[in-house]
């Protein structure tokens, strides 16, 4: 796959693959990041894969920059998306509409569908975790069916509750904590994508597959009661 390597200042290298949002490009990006991570080169502080590029942060005083460049070039050159079966999806329960999904009707109007049909469209796809960002544990999932791909609000909400499930164009995701946010909110999950106190603080990582399924308010309350953090509420199949 085509790539280029560009520095960002004196302590980061960026490897860019093809400029599009695409599962194969993203898989290649994640594979390249993993290979660089595995190489455990001295001085590397962080390796951060995103949609189609990755950042390698390093300490310029503890890094042999020629060796780093050589290794990164090698890994970019040989990066390939892993073959074989896709990972089983992480299943996330969502209580759609009502107070949890204040934008569900707007999305339905946008799509010329009923709210129930929007839920059906949202739950009928298996999404890819392209990357994490924005806040700890926020996974950018895609691609959402074009019919319901409503753009984000032009003015973000000041407070979006934790667990809110939103969409913005062809992206969808779960807000891990209460933050400001501009995505169209269609429901809420009792599952917490991020909890620093949990043995595994992060529910999702880049490259995972995710599937949403509808639950009613009673089930939502029951799961929340049991602890939204419980792995079984969103277990791998």
């Amino acid at each position, binding site marked *: 796959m085509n790539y280029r390597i*560009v*520095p960002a*200042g*004196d302590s980061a290298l960026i490897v860019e693959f093809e400029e599009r*949002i695409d599962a194969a490009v993203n898989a290649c990006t994640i594979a390249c990041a993993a290979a660089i991570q595995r190489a455990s080169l001295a001085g590397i502080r*962080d390796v951060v894969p995103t949609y189609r590029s990755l950042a390698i942060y390093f300490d310029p005083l503890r890094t042999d920059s020629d060796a780093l460049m050589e290794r990164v070039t090698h890994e970019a050159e040989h990066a390939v998306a892993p073959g074989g079966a896709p990972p089983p999806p992480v299943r996330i329960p969502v209580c759609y509409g009502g107070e949890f999904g204040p934008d569900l009707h707007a999305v339905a109007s946008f799509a010329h569908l009923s709210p129930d049909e929007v839920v059906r469209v949202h739950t009928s796809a298996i999404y890819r975790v392209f990357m*994490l*960002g*924005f806040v700890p544990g926020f996974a950018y999932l895609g691609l959402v069916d074009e019919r319901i791909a409503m753009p984000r609000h032009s003015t973000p909400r000041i407070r979006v509750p934790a667990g809110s499930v939103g969409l913005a164009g062809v992206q969808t995701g779960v807000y891990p904590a209460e933050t400001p946010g501009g995505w169209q909110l269609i429901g809420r999950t009792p599952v917490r994508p*991020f909890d620093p106190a949990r043995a595994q603080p992060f529910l999702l990582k880049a490259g995972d597959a995710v599937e949403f399924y509808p639950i009613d308010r009673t089930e939502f309350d029951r799961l929340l009661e049991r602890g939204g953090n419980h792995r079984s509420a969103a277990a791998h199949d």
Partner: protein
Amino acid sequence: MTEDAHHLRPGAPALVVVKPGMLTTIQDEGRWGLQAHGVPVAGPMDPVSHRLANALVGNDRGAATLEVTLVGPELEFDDERIVAVTGAAFDLWLDGKSVPHNAAFTAAAGSRLRFGERRLGARAYLAVAGGINVAPTLGSRATHLISAMGGLEGRALRVADRLPLGQPMRSPAAAGQRTPIVALPDRHARIRIRPGPQAEYFSPDALEVLQSAPYVIAQHSDRMGFRLEGPPLTHHRGADIISDATPLGVLQVPASGQPILLMADRQTTGGYPKVATVISADIAVAGQLGPSDTITFTVCTPREALGALIAQERALMALEGPWS
């Protein structure tokens, strides 16, 4: 320190917040290694002064300090401690007596340290021998305000907070006032940059425009980043990119053409093109600027960037001694 102080008080000795100041947070070198999970790094805005403060009291460089912003706090010591304040120059009063900036001093059990008038710079670092010993979150004590993580409940200090202190590790470096390693800017700084990583998203003269006149730091600027107001930059491939990683010190440029300098609490990713990046050695100076201060950007060579960083490192290592 006196053994008595330990026996007389229940629990770990603490630093008690009498007045919190405008924005005082617990910081260490940051939460590295988790940006792939969306976890921001945080850490000190002026990492050099943070490290210097630790060196002066004999702490490891990774110990947590207090970052004091613009208006300083008043603090009371449970037990006797070696203390140092670096970074922004504040008048410092220990039980009403002046104590020096950039030098270790001893605070007696029960004494109160008050930050007075600020003379220069925006952020001071207070290190206490033994470090601020709150429980780490995901391997770091650094406070990240937006995600409410680290430090004390992920927030700025409040009145009556008790900050647990660690065991002092070793004798501090020799006493006496130090020459600061970061020259404090007087409301204006010249900051060196390297082009990219996305300079080609802008008109060919963008780097010239960026260097043509000073940029003013806007009022709503914070630990996440400085919104800058100055000569607008022109995009020539649009102002949106496919979101990617956002390095410390990068200048991202939204559609307005006014750059935003991303600092310690930046998000891990962003969707605006990035015209240039501040060199590592100049992050500390940038961290000493506040709203309405100005920045003149200058492109430098990779050699100059590395040379400046090496000079800074040598000065710090000379104070840290062999243990750090």
